[in-house]
């Protein structure tokens, strides 16, 4: 892909994925990995950052004799996600003005 994925975009994608369903690190990474070219160690710092900003919280669920750490979006996280979505619409609009203009 010609365009790099910035940290802000990753934050937004993770928050959006978590707004539908709580999930754990591996699954998050695999979902992201399906469509974006990110390495498998990409999400650890992203999750750290989002958690320290209180956009995410975690809880552990026992699974096959060990714990799975699930990530859930907080109210602050949802607010942030809305902010990201608005920003994205504006950003996309500006780029579209160039890329999609026929004149």
């Amino acid at each position, binding site marked *: *892909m010609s365009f*790099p*994925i*910035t*940290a802000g975009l*990753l934050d937004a994608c993770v928050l959006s994925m978590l707004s539908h369903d709580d999930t*754990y*690190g*591996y*699954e998050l*990474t695999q979902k992201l*990995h399906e469509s*974006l*070219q*990110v*390495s*498998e*160690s*990409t999400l*650890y*710092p*992203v*999750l*750290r*950052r*989002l*958690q*320290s900003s209180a956009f995410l919280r*975690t809880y*552990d669920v026992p699974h*096959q*004799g*060990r*714990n*799975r*750490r699930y990530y859930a979006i907080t109210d602050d996280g949802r607010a942030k996600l809305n902010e990201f979505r608005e920003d994205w619409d504006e950003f996309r609009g500006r780029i579209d003005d160039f890329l999609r203009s026929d004149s």
Partner: protein
Amino acid sequence: MDRLTYLTELTKALSGLGASDRENALAYYGEYLAEAEATAEGELDASAILGSPRTLAAQIKADIAMGDSEPTIAPAPLPSTGDENPVAPGTQSEPIGEAPPGMPAGAASSIPAGVPAGVPSQSTPKKSEMGVVWTVVLALLAIPVGVPLAIALIAVVFALFVTLGALLFSLAAVVVAFLVAAILCGLVGIYLLFADFVTGLFYLGTSLVTMGLCILFGMAFWQLGKLCIQGVAHLLNTIRKRLTQRERNPS
């Protein structure tokens, strides 16, 4: 590299990090590899997924040391062809975040180094700030050693140049002086040949002797100049070799 070996290596490579930062990272990647192993068909090559433990540890450390500054996202390695170089993925620099309280410790039971399970530990951003401060202090301490050495070296080479230059200049001055004297004596001698023949001959003789001395000194100047240029070139070459060797050796 199998999962447990990988985590042991990662634990080793993460030493030097604060205890909670280390545990959080180990817990996350311990869980991650356990999940990967559960879904993998056959043997799991942990370093093919996450890159070498050292690289991953360096990434984690960098993220923590950089605190909350803006991270950069590196693209993923191209899709695996099956038997790629196990160190290839994950060698990129990674996003950066400040240390949050309590990252997953879920898979801690799979970590050999006795990491407590399920207890999110607190990590303060102060610790990482201190890390940056220490790094800067160390860098500042390291600079004054290198800079005066370089200045001294440059000063010595410069002094050598000035000395050799002065020597060559003085020789050149002597040669020119002899040449001027020889020409003047010759002219005066020719003039006096018609007025006072004997004195004229004396002057002509002096002119020839001076001319000879001029040629001798000229040859000395020429040889010395060649020697100087060769010597300086050799010296600079030696210094260059020493410097590049010193850069190569410690790494």
